[in-house]
C-alpha cells in the first residue's frame, strides 16, 4: 500500500495574544509567510501542490472568507493550487493532515500543504458574535461550556491536585526553555515580518516559572478551583504548516522524510470533560496502527491544561519521560487552529531526532472530542 509521509514542518514564533510581538500581524499574513517558507524550504515545484488545507478555530473577521484561499494568494502559490479552510476547533490543522492522507490514499493528489493559524489577539475566542442555540443550551448546557470549566471538571473527576498541575507546568517551561537555549527550535521557526519589524522568537516561555511563583496565582476559572493561568495554555498568536505527500513523491524529489503517517482517529466524549478527548482517539489510533502504548518512543500531547494532560497520561498509561520533550503548549502557547499541525510536525521531527520508531500526536478539542495521529519512522 501507498505510504503517506510528513516531509517538512515549520511554524511561526508563538507569542502571547494582545501583548506579544505578533499581536499586530494579521492572521492571513502570518499564515501566508509560514506557508511560503514551507514550500520554499522544500524546494518542490509549487504547482505540484494539490490543495492548501488550513485549520482555523474561529474563521471570521480577519480569519474570515475562505481564509485558506487568501493565504494561498498571499503566499504566491500558483492559482491551480486548491484551498479549503477546516474547523475542528483545536483539532483543525491535525484534521487537515488527516484529510490530506485520505486524499493521497484515494489517489486524489500527491502533495498537500496542511497548515493552521490563529490570532487570538485579533479574533477573540467565541468570535465577535457568539449566538448559542437557546434550546440546545437549555437541554445540554455543556455544549457551550467554557474551556477553563472543563479543566476544573477534569481535575475534580480525576482527583488531580493543584500541586500536580503546577509541577507539570514547571516541567513544560523548563523543557521549552532548554530546547530554545539549545537552538532546537531554530529549524522549525520561520521569522515573521510585520508592522513592528521581524519576529524570530517565541514569547510565551517563562523559564523562571517555579512552584512558588505558580502557588501564588489565583484560580482563573473558579474561585474554589485548582486551575490557574499558570497551569493553562496561554492565549497565543501563531501559525504552523507541514508538507504531507506520498512517499513516492518525496523520494522522487529528494525531500527529507520526517516520518510516515501510520494511522489516525477522532473520537467524541462528554463536552464537560473535553480534556480527556485524547484517550478515546489515541486508543482508536493505536489499535488501527496495531501497536501498544509501550511501543511509542515520542509523544506530543497538547497541553491545553495541565489537568487534562495529566488525566490523559494517567488513563493511557503514557510514559511521562517521552511526553513533550521540547515543552508543550503551557510553555509554548496554543494558537488554536495552528496547534495540530505543530504537534504532528514536531512529533515527526522528534521521531527522527530521537531515532525512535513510533510517535503519537494527540489533542483534546472543545465541545468534547479527541484527535490522534500515529507516526512511524521511515
Amino acid at each position, binding site marked *: 500500500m501507498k505510504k503517506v509521509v510528513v516531509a517538512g514542518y515549520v511554524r511561526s514564533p508563538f507569542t502571547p495574544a494582545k501583548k506579544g510581538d505578533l499581536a499586530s500581524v494579521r492572521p492571513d499574513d502570518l499564515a501566508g509567510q509560514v506557508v511560503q517558507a514551507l514550500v520554499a524550504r522544500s524546494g518542490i515545484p509549487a504547482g505540484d501542490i494539490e490543495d492548501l488545507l488550513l485549520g482555523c478555530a474561529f474563521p471570521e*473577521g480577519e480569519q474570515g472568507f475562505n481564509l485558506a484561499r487568501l493565504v494561498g494568494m498571499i503566499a504566491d502559490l500558483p492559482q491551480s493550487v486548491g484551498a479549503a479552510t477546516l474547523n475542528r476547533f483545536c483539532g483543525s490543522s491535525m484534521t487537515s493532515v488527516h484529510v490530506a492522507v485520505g486524499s493521497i490514499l484515494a489517489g486524489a493528489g500527491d502533495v498537500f500543504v496542511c497548515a493552521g493559524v490563529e490570532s487570538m489577539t485579533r479574533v477573540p475566542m*467565541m468570535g*465577535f*458574535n*457568539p*449566538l*448559542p*442555540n*437557546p434550546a440546545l*443550551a437549555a437541554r445540554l448546557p455543556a455544549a*457551550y461550556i*467554557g474551556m*477553563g*470549566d472543563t479543566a476544573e471538571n477534569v481535575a475534580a473527576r480525576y482527583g488531580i491536585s493543584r500541586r500536580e498541575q503546577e509541577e507539570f507546568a514547571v516541567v513544560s517551561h523548563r523543557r521549552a526553555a532548554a530546547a530554545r537555549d539549545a537552538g532546537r527550535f531554530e529549524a522549525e521557526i520561520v521569522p515573521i515580518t510585520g508592522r513592528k519589524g521581524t519576529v524570530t522568537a517565541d514569547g510565551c516561555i517563562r523559564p523562571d516559572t517555579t512552584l512558588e511563583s505558580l502557588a501564588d496565582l489565583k*484560580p*482563573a*476559572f*473558579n*474561585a*474554589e*478551583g485548582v486551575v490557574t493561568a499558570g497551569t493553562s495554555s496561554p492565549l497565543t498568536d501563531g501559525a504552523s504548516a507541514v508538507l504531507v505527500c506520498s512517499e513516492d513523491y518525496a523520494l522522487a524529489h529528494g525531500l527529507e522524510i520526517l516520518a510516515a503517517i501510520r494511522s489516525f482517529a477522532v473520537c467524541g466524549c462528554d463536552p464537560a470533560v473535553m480534556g480527556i478527548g485524547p484517550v478515546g482517539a489515541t486508543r482508536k489510533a493505536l489499535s488501527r496502527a496495531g501497536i501498544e502504548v509501550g511501543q511509542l518512543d515520542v509523544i506530543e500531547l497538547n497541553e491545553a491544561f495541565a489537568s487534562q494532560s495529566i488525566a490523559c497520561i494517567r488513563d493511557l498509561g503514557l510514559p511521562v519521560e517521552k511526553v513533550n520533550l521540547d515543552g508543550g503548549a503551557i510553555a509554548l502557547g496554543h494558537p488554536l487552529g495552528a496547534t495540530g499541525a505543530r504537534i504532528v510536525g514536531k512529533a515527526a521531527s522528534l521521531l527522527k531526532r530521537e531515532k525512535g520508531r513510533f510517535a503519537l500526536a494527540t489533542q483534546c478539542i472543545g465541545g468534547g472530542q479527541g484527535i490522534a495521529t500515529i507516526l512511524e519512522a521511515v
Partner: protein
Amino acid sequence: MANIDKVAVIGAGTMGAGIAAQVANAGIPVLLLDIVPADATNRNAIAEGALERLKKADPAAFMSRDAARLVTPGNIEDHLAALAECDWIVEAVIERLDIKQSLYAKIEAARKPGSVVSSNTSTIPLSALIGGLPTTFASDFCITHFFNPPRYMRLLELVGGPATRPEALEAVRHFADHRLGKSVVEAKDRPGFIANRLGVYWLQAAVIEAVEMGLDIEDVDAIVGRPMGIPKTGVFGLLDLVGLDLMPHVNASLAAALPAEDPFHALNRPVPLVDKLIAEGYTGRKGKGGFYRVNREAGKRKEAVDLVTGAFRPARKADVEAIAAAGRSLTALLDHDSPHGRYAWRVLGRTLAYAAFLLGDAADEVEAIDEAMRLGYNWKQGPFQLIDKVGVDWLVSRLEREGWAVPPALRLAAGRTFHRIEAGRRQVLGLDGAYHDLVRPEGVVLLDDLKLNRQPVLKNGSAALWDIGDGVACFEFTSKMNSIDSEIMDLLGKSIRRVKKDFKALVIYNEGSNFSAGANLGLALFAANIAAWTEIEQMVTAGQQTYRALKYAPFPVVGAPSGMALGGGCEILLHCDAVQAHAETYVGLVEVGVGLVPGWGGCKEMLSRWSSLGNLPKGPMPAVGKVFETVAVATVAKSAAEAKELLFLRPSDGVTMNRARLLADAKAKALSLVEGYVPPAPPVLTLPGPSGKVALDLAIGSLRRQGKATPHDEVVSGALAEVLTGGDTDVTTPLDEEQVLELERSRFMRLVRHPGTLARIETMLLTGKPLRN
C-alpha cells in the same frame, strides 16, 4: 499673546510629574526631564520611572491613555536642546537656590527667545531666584505654584516680579486657566504666597493648641471639620495625608523667611510629640501611619494617637458637646464655655485674624485670599467669608477681649462685611475702604452670579429654569445632592414646553459639586416598602417619557456636567443633543450597584451609541457585549476623556478644562446648534434576542464561578442581559425605542420587587456603600 503649544517640566518628583500629566491632559505635548542618576545604564531612568508611577497613580494623574502618550521622558544632560522647541518651561526641582540657579543658567542657554520659564517653588522668593541672572531671563520668569495633586487641585498661585513681561505672565495665566483648568490667583512675592502662608499657620495653630490643651484628635477633627466648612479629614487627617515629616521643614522655611513681627513666630514652637512620631516612622499615610494608624496586629483596628501620652489607642467617634449645643451657629461654637469651645476659638480666631493680617501683605484682594483657601485647602468658605459669617465686629470685640492684636483690615471693615451683594452684583471690600465689583476672569459666567439679579423662569422644590441670556435657558437641579425625583421630571416637562415657546436652546447645568448622583433612592425604597408598585412604575414611565421628550424637543439641548453624573444623571446626558463636559466629570450607569437596570432609557441610548458610533465588528452582538460589560459592572468613567472612550459622551462632545468656564462653553455650544436644528431620528435597533442572552449568561456564569459575581449580581445581570439582547426578539425583527424602553421598564419592575435589590437599596442609603449580596 504667545501660544503655548509645547511644554517642558524639569524635575520629575511628585509635583513636576503631576504638572506634566496635567499639561498632557490638556492635549499638549510635554517633555519631562530629570537628572541622570549616578552610574546609570538608562540615562532617563528617573523621568521614565516617574512616568510609570503617574500611569499607576491613584487617584489617576492622567485623564486618558492618550494623554500619557504625550509625555516624553528625558534627562537634562542629553535633552536640554529640546527646550528650544518649548514655549513654557516649568522648573520643579529640589528647593535649593544654588541648584535652581545653575539649572536656570542652562535653561537660559537652551531656550528660545520669548519662551516663559517658571518655578514651582513654594518657599524661595522670586527676587532670590532671578538674582545674578540676565535681564532676558528675569523678564521671562515667574513663579507658578501648583498644589498637590496638580490634576485635582484647582488653585494656581501666580507670582510675577517687577521685571516680568506682562505678556509672559498673561501667556501663562491664559494657558493655566483655559488649558490646565486652574483658577489663577495672583500672589505677591512673599514667603509661602497665600494658601500655604495661611494654611500652615492654621495647621500649626490647630496642632499646638490641641497638644497643649491635651484634646483628643477625633474631637479636634470634628471641630475644625464640618462646623468650619473644612473637609472632614480635619487637621490631623490632613497632616497624615500630606506627611508629618513635611511640617518641621515647612515651618522652619517659613519662619526663616518671615519678618520678626509676623504672628507666625509666636506659634512656631516645637511639638515634641510630632518629632517623636516622625522619628518612629509615623510620617503619615505614606509611612506606617501618622496621628491615625491602622493596627494590623489588632485586626486592622483604626487607632489614634493620644496627644498627652503619645501612645496609640483605639480610635473612637468624636464626642463634642459644643458642636451639638452650637447647632448651626459658628459664633455659638466659638463662644461655648468648654475646652472644645475655647479650642475652636483659639484656632479659628487666630486664623481669621491672621488672614486679615495678610491682606495687603500676601495679596491685596480679599477674594484672592478666599479663593486660595477654597481651592488650595478645600475650605468650603474663604476666611473672609467666615469673618462675615461670625461678623467683623464680633471678631474685633472678641480679639480685644482676649488682648490679641486687631489687624488693620478688620478696623477698616468695622461695621461692615468684606463681601456684599449690591444691586444684584457681588462686591468686595478693597484696601481703599470702598466696595468694588467682583470681576470674574473674561468669559467666566457663573449661574450663582446670574441668580443674584433675576428670578427663575420656572421653579419648584427640586429644580429651576433660568434665563441665561441670548435666548438660552438653563435647567438647574436644586434637590439634595441633585438627586433626580418626580419634581425634577415634572419641571423638566414644563421647561421643555416653555423653552419651545420662549427660548432657542436649553442647557442642563448646575453648580453643585456633583451634576447628579442619580435617582432619589430614598423615595424608591419608601415606595417599595409600602408596596406602591404602580407609583414606582409611574416614576419609571414618567422618566422615560420626559427624557424622550427632551431628546426630540424642537430645540437643541446641551448637558453640562461636572463631577459625578451617575445613573439617572447619566441618562439625562445620554438624551441631550450634545454635551459640554467639565474635564473632571465622572459618568456611569451604576444602577446594578443597587440591584436595578437603567430604566430611563440608558440601555436604549447606549445600545444605539455603540451600534452607530462604536466602530465594532458587524453582527448583533458586539454593541450588546460592549454595553453589557460596561453597565453590568457599573463602570464609571474617571474623566470626560474616559467617558468618550466608553461612549457615555460622543466623540463630538466638548470638554472644558476650567470648571468656571463650563456654563459659558455649554451656552456657546447650544447656540452653535440653533441654526437649522433638526431633532435626531429615532434609532432602530437590531438585537440578537435569546441567542445573545445565552452568550451573556455564559459570561455571567463564568464570572460567578470565578467569584467575581455574587448570587444577586447573577439575577441583576440576567435581567440586564434580557434588556440588552432585546428580550424574545429575533435578529430579523428590529426593535424601535418604545420596545426597548418597555424591556427596561418591565425588568426594572421585576428587580425592584426582589428582596436582594431592596437589600441593596437599603444598604446604599444607610452606608453609602454597595451591598455585595
